[in-house]
């Protein structure tokens, strides 16, 4: 419906995608196409999916995210999910949502380091 609701920006060789808090199904479906298109256009190494604003992760959302990660992988990229809220993580686990083998990170910083291939920062740079 409103696929401009998803922000896709390029940071170095990585795409940073931020999901809106309560996206409708069309917005979620549009995510896939926009991400793959951007991967191709920017020759990106990977994708960081920031879901820190997302309040509800249901089976449709989970499936789309898993599929998108697989497609990014086929294009030679890596996907990292960032910022899952505690309540969302609890619900997803208790309800048996499967997010495949997608990597996760607590912060965008850490995900960016992982994709850009930088060594792990010391514990000092915690936030």
């Amino acid at each position: 419906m409103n696929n401009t609701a998803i922000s896709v920006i390029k940071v170095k060789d990585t795409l940073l995608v931020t999901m809106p808090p309560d996206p409708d199904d069309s917005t979620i479906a549009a995510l896939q196409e926009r991400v793959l298109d951007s991967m191709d256009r920017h020759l990106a190494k990977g994708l960081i999916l920031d879901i820190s604003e997302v309040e509800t992760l249901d089976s449709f959302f989970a499936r789309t995210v898993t599929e998108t990660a697989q497609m990014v992988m086929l294009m030679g990229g890596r996907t990292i999910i960032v910022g899952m809220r505690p309540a969302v993580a609890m619900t997803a686990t208790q309800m048996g949502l499967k997010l495949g083998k997608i990597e996760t990170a607590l912060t965008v910083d850490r995900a960016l380091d992982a994709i850009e291939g930088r060594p792990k920062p010391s514990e000092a740079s915690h936030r």
Partner: protein
Amino acid sequence: MTSGISSGELQISAENDIVMARRMVRDAATQLGFGVTDVTRLVTAASELARNVYKYAGQGVMKWSSMQADTRVGLQLQFVDQGPGIPDVAQAMEEGFTTGGGLGLGQAIVQPGVAVARNRRDVEHHLRRHDGADRQSEQLSRQAEPRKPAAAVRCALLARRLVLARHGCP
């Protein structure tokens, strides 16, 4: 909102109504004093059921109402549609079974304590039976684990009801 029974309903006939259903349940559950985790669980379950209504029946209605018993507060969600029905209910409740190209988790997600029925007679039968089960589990949870919320989810072809009760008022 003052204490007492409140309720509302939402027509589901467009994709965006799934979002509306989530919002309605989030507002209701928050106002009833559910914690953020329970709110998220309720909203997620509502999202699955609202999508099922839209996807398989095209249209239907979601009704919500608050419930109160002693110090317990509950939220009941009921999804009613005139959908094509579920030929094999046991199979449909299995994780990984899908006819709609989904993950097959939608029904299984709403499963704990779920009853699904094929027709109105079955629905009534299930609801009667599970009313008894609810009372039992409520009593049990009071005796054994007074702080743990008793959760019961009811799901049926013509009437899907979800009840999450919690102890204490905000």
